[in-house]
C-alpha cells in the first residue's frame, strides 16, 4: 500500500483528493500548508507528495526547498498541482526538483491519480 502526503490549503480540493486516494487504497496524510507539510512528512514517510503552490505560512516552493535539504526526502517524488500557469512558476518549481507540474483546472481527478501511479512506478524502477 503506497503512502501519500497531500499538501493543499483548499479544504474542498483536499476532500476530493482524500476520497479518491482512499478509494484507490492509499494511506493518506494531509497538511494545510508547507509548514504543516514539513512537520507531517517525518511521521508519514510518504512514497509520494501531492503539492499545491499558493498556500499560507509556507508556500509550495519553500516546502520543496526545505524538504530537499533532508537526505531522507531528497528523492521523494513530488507532483505539483496548482492553478499557477506562468512559465516562470513552472521553471522555478522544476529547478527545485519535482516530478511533474500539473494545472488543476486542466486535469480530471482520474488524470491526477494516473500521474501519481505512473510517477510511483518510475520511482520504483
Amino acid at each position: 500500500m503506497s503512502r501519500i502526503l497531500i499538501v493543499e490549503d483548499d479544504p474542498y480540493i483536499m476532500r476530493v483528493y482524500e476520497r479518491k486516494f482512499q478509494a484507490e487504497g492509499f494511506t493518506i496524510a494531509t497538511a494545510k500548508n508547507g509548514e504543516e507539510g514539513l512537520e507531517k512528512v517525518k511521521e508519514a514517510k510518504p512514497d509520494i507528495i501531492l503539492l499545491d503552490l499558493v498556500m499560507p505560512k509556507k508556500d509550495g516552493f519553500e516546502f520543496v526547498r526545505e524538504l530537499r535539504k533532508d537526505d531522507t526526502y531528497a528523492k521523494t517524488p513530488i507532483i505539483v498541482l496548482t492553478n499557477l500557469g506562468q512559465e516562470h512558476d513552472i521553471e522555478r518549481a522544476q529547478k527545485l526538483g519535482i516530478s511533474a507540474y500539473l494545472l488543476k483546472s486542466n486535469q480530471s481527478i482520474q488524470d491526477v491519480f494516473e500521474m501519481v501511479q505512473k510517477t510511483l512506478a518510475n520511482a520504483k524502477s
Partner: protein
Amino acid sequence: MAQKRNTVQNAVVLPPELIASIGDGVIVVDPSLKVTEANAQAVEMLHKRKSTMVGHPVWRFLDIRDAKGKKTHNTVRITIGKLLHKARANKRKVPPVTLPPVYVKFPGLGVLPYAFTLSLIQNQYGTVQGAVLSFRDISTDVEVGNMKSEFVSLAAHQLRAPLTSIRWNIEMLLRGEIGPVPETQQELLHDIYASNGRMLTLVNDLLNVSRLESGRIRVDPTPVDLVATAQDIKKELEGEARVGHVSVVVERDVSVKEGEKVPVDPGLMHEVIKNFTANAIKYTPEGGKVTVRVSSDGKRYRVGVADTGMGISKKEQTKIFTKFFRAANAADKDPLGSGLGLYMVKMLAGALGSKVGFRSKEGEGSEFFVTIPRKGSPKNLHGKPYSSLSLKA
C-alpha cells in the same frame, strides 16, 4: 517660379483665442513640424514657455517613452510622417488619426499616458499647411482599465479552484466511485459536468481576454511550419468533424515550399487557426467541407479557413470580431457560445503582428483568414503565457 510647397510660408495661422478655448493641450505646427502655436494647457503640460517653443521642432518638447519609461520609437512622429506622405501623394483631405495611449515624459511629471489626435491642416487643393496635435492626460482611464483587467484576472483565478473541486466531485460520482448512481441522476450529473466545463472555459477565456487587453501576453517566436500546424489542428478536431459529418482538408499552395517556416509564437498561432477551424466545423451543416489553405504572396503568409457553412449576414459582418458579439444564425445553432472566440483571435493576431479578416455570404459560407508578415511576430517575453484549456469531455 512655382511656389515651394509645404514650407513655413504657407503655414496657416489659427486664431490663438480658438485654440486657447480647447480643454486639451493643443500644439499647432507648420509643415516642417516646427511649433507655430501652443495653447495654455499644452504650455502647462510641457512646462515650457510658449516663446521658447515657437519656431522649434515639436519633437524637442515631446519625449515619447514606453509604458515603463524607456526610450522607444516615436509613434506620434511616425504617424504624422505617414499622414504627410499620404497627403502629398494623394492631394486629398486626410482624416485625423487618434493614437492608442502614447507615453510621454514630461518634466517634473514623470511618464504619463496621453491620448493624441493628429490632424493635418490642408487647403482646398490638399496642400498641407500644418498640423494640429491635440492631447490629453488619460492616466485615470488607463488606471481604471488596468484595475478592471486586474479584477477580472483575480476573480478568474479565484473561480478556478471551486470549479475544479466541483468538476472532480462530479467526475467521481459519474465514475461510480462513491457508489452506483441511477441512470436518471447520471443524466443530471452529466449536465452539471458540462456546465461546469463551460464555466471553466469561460473563466479561462476571460483571463486570456484580460491579459490580451492589457497587452500582457507572452509572445515567443520560433520557426513554425504553418501547414504542419494546420494538419495538427485537423487531427485535434477530428472528433468534432466526425460528429458534424464535415470533411476537413489542409492544402499547401505552390507559393509555399514544403516544410517552409515562419518565426511566430507556435502556441498563439495554433490558437488562431484552431479557432477558425473549430468555428468552420461547428457552423457547417452535414456533408459540408472545410478547407484550410496556406499560401504566400511573397510579403505575407496567409492561412485561410473556408467553409460551406451558414455564412454571416451582411448587417452583422462589421461586428463579427467585437467582444461578446454572436451572429443570430450562429447563436441559434449553438446558444452556448460566449462570443469571445473571434474577439480573442483578433487580439491574438495583433499580438502576433498579424491581421485577421473574412469574406462571407449568408447561406453559402465564409472564409476567415490570418495574414502573417514574412519576418514573423515581434518578441514579447515579459507577458504572461496564454492559457489554452483543453478539458476532457
